[in-house]
């Protein structure tokens, strides 16, 4: 690995993350990164997307060294990013460095890991109505 890829970027102090909680980190590009702090002040970083339906893991309940996704309650291990069985799936993890209470992430990872992932969409801008609706509604039903 080249020198340039080993640059650590400061993100926050450990105490800016709630204990048994999380913060989100905005990147220049790509989905946010979730920073977790356990009861004993260990800090982990994962892509803020559950491998199941892309729920924001940063909003989940942290316990032990795991987080429960807020959407469908999958449990994701903070150290590995892997779903706890019997569910299967992994979310990308990010290296974390904690020194003197300062949390830093690797700039090379922030710049490259999972930057082109499609965002989840919901609502009128999301995917077209479910498969039940194969043909467009008649104008009268659309309120035209």
């Amino acid at each position, binding site marked *: 690995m080249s020198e340039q890829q080993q640059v650590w*970027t*400061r*993100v*926050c102090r450990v105490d*800016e993350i*709630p*204990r*048994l*909680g999380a*913060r*989100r*980190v*905005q*990147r*220049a590009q790509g989905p*946010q*990164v979730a*920073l977790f702090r356990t*009861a004993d002040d260990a800090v982990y970083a994962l892509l803020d997307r559950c491998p199941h*339906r*892309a*729920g*924001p893991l940063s*909003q*989940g*309940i*942290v*316990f*032990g060294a795991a987080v*429960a996704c*807020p*959407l469908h*309650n999958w*449990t994701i291990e903070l150290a590995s990013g892997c779903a706890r069985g*019997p569910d299967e799936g992994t979310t990308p993890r990010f290296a974390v460095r904690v020194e003197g209470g300062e949390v830093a*992430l690797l*700039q090379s990872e*922030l710049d490259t890991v999972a930057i082109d992932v499609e*965002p*989840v*969409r*919901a*609502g*009128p*801008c*999301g995917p077209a109505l479910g498969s039940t609706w194969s043909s467009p509604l008649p104008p009268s039903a659309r309120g035209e």
Partner: protein
Amino acid sequence: MKKSRLVLIGNGMAGVRTLEELLKIAPGLYDITVFGAEPHPNYNRILLSPVLAGEQTIDEIVLNPLSWYADNGITLHLGKTVTEIDRRRRRVVAADGTVAEYDRLLIATGSNPFMLPVPGRELEGVIAYRDIADTEAMIDAATRYRHAVIVGGGLLGLEAANGLMLRGMQVSVVHLAGWLMERQLDDQAGALLRQSLEARGLKFLLGAQTEALIPDKDGRVMAVRFKDGREIPADLVVMAAGIRPNTALAESAGLLCERGVKVSDTLQSVTDPRVYAVGECAAHRGVAYGLVAPLFEQAKVCATHLAQFGIGRYEGSQVSTKLKVTGIDLFSAGDFMGGEDTEEIVMSDPFGGVYKKLVIRDDRLVGACLYGDTVDGGWYFKLLREGRKIADIRDKLMFGESNIGDTGHQGQSRAAAMADSDEVCGCNGVSKGAICKAIKDKGLFTLEEVRRHTKASASCGSCTGLVEQLIMSTAGGDYSSAPRKKALCGCTDLSHQEVRDAIFKEHLTSLPAVYATLAWASPDGCATCRPALNYYLLSSWPKEAQDDPQARFINERSHANIQKDGTYSVIPRMWGGETNASELRRIADVVDKYKIPTVKVTGGQRIDLLGVKKEDLPAVWAEIGMPSGHAYAKALRTVKTCVGSEWCRMGTQDSTHMGKALERALWRMYAPHKVKLAVSGCPRNCAESGIKDVGIIGVDSGWELYIAGNGGIKTEVAQFLCKVKTADEVLEVSGAFLQLYRKEGWYLERTCHYVGRVGMDHVKRRVLDDAEGRRALWAELQFALDGEPDPWFDFDRAKVDLRQFNALEAAR
């Protein structure tokens, strides 16, 4: 240090299951050696019947392939029968001289078939029905012989008869009792079963006493003779007249045996604590269980003791029965015969082939016998185990759980009739095919396992009966048995009730105090227990216990409702569902300013703004300038009202005013689950009070109060509580009931389930009969709610962590 040695005698379902449980919780603790008399790895003995019937192959019923033993470092001795246990030198010896030493010994030798003591029992062509060898002998006989006689019309005998008939033999079943399966069915259901099996071509000789088996000139059986002199031809005789615990080995080792190896609640032999016994060979409190669900419960407990955790006791099981003959549905449990002190509810449709009998004693279901339609077997079994009073559902009991009102499972009543593509679980979109595949591929046995792997029946639970039928037909056996007391979560053995009681009795006011006092297994709980504990603390010790935001689900931390794309919905409170032009203008301006994509009117008469970005939440709340609607919380949601006597020409009472008064008195009220109220101004009930946690209906002479209704998964019509005259009484009675629910309800238990559990009588006693108690409850609730902050404005006091709304920047 040298590892301890564990020897298992008996390579069957109970013993190997114990090893699996042990390896799960304490891998590598023992050097394990297994002796099996049969030359096969552990297989699913219950599925021998489908193998005999040609519906499955032997390979398909293997539970633990040889590779499993190798992967787990288990020394496996197949085809070796242990003939001696030397307890002094702590070793076992097999017939071929193989010796294994042990520190702990697990006996799981199962049972032996009972061979009728009649002349000719040793003839060629006379076999039992117990293992793969027997099954293969029967399959082989079916290709060469014509007449089969089964001795015994119980579960096993009928399955053998059905299998042999499907393989082309002419089969007669000889049975001593007056009807089939007399230990599982009453005479009526037995008669229906007989009819149905006769229509398939089986012949029955009931009340027949076998006298002798007659040999032909080559020494093979050729006929069966009865006491009354009749003789019937028989080229194959299958003895299926019961089983006996296989305890010869244990007895020869001096272990106390009484109808099985006598064991304690920890599954240890009462003679020698180094020796454990599980399964059909073990007698626990005088009972040797022959069904798989109890064996698995024993395995679990035994494993915790082998793992030296020393927790868990086996306290016996109640069992139910189903028959594994494709196309025949029957189920029985408990005291299905009934007696002088019982009442019966019976539904009988002999032409339709449906018969159901429910046996009731002292207002509790104590037995059930179902034939033809068994989808509710699991539900009856649950009622029976729980021993709950059934007066309130008695009129609907016969028609099953789905008729008490579940949505979303198409009224299916027979899993067997469904196509693979048919949806079983409407909540999670799981098809029959997917469930069957998971059961087969992953070797699932219990309802809990199927729920974890497939999510089927894991949400609303209304398809539980169907899923149980699928487990039954795919994995065999009845695996629905569950402990009567359910632990709150994996962090504790205590139930919700025990935790509630302890928090109150021990005056616990913080999560760390709970973890320490109640010996929690994890340092900071889990996503299941933490929200529950936090609620129990706050509801038991208002103004005193510490609220921990990190113990709340995200919606109660960010005070908005998370959506599938990670955005939030915001629902401002509109008292009684009333709004005005300036509120609507502010809402419209916020929608424009923050580009909120969807605005929707809710069922609770509020306006829902969907798709709000998390960072916009505080500004949206501030600019709307209305109180939090708590539409995201386990708390009072809405009080829905009709326009009432203010405008309506039919109205008899001012329902809007009443609704607003209730909502102002009760908002900010956290509860075990969400709480919805409605007030209608006349019996036309336009506010739908009949399906609310508290529903109020104005009549000319006052107000009627209904409680414990539900419009959700389990559509439940609210039950009449009382009629009162004044608005103040409405407030006091409603508040008292809700406070009772807040103090006694289990976390995530809606009022309909709570009242179902404690009974309407209990609620009436506390809220109606005891006037002083009612006022005290109402005062307690007012005390708890007094001065509670609005989390949309009073961030500090509501402990809203504002940092969550801003993302951190990765500084370059």
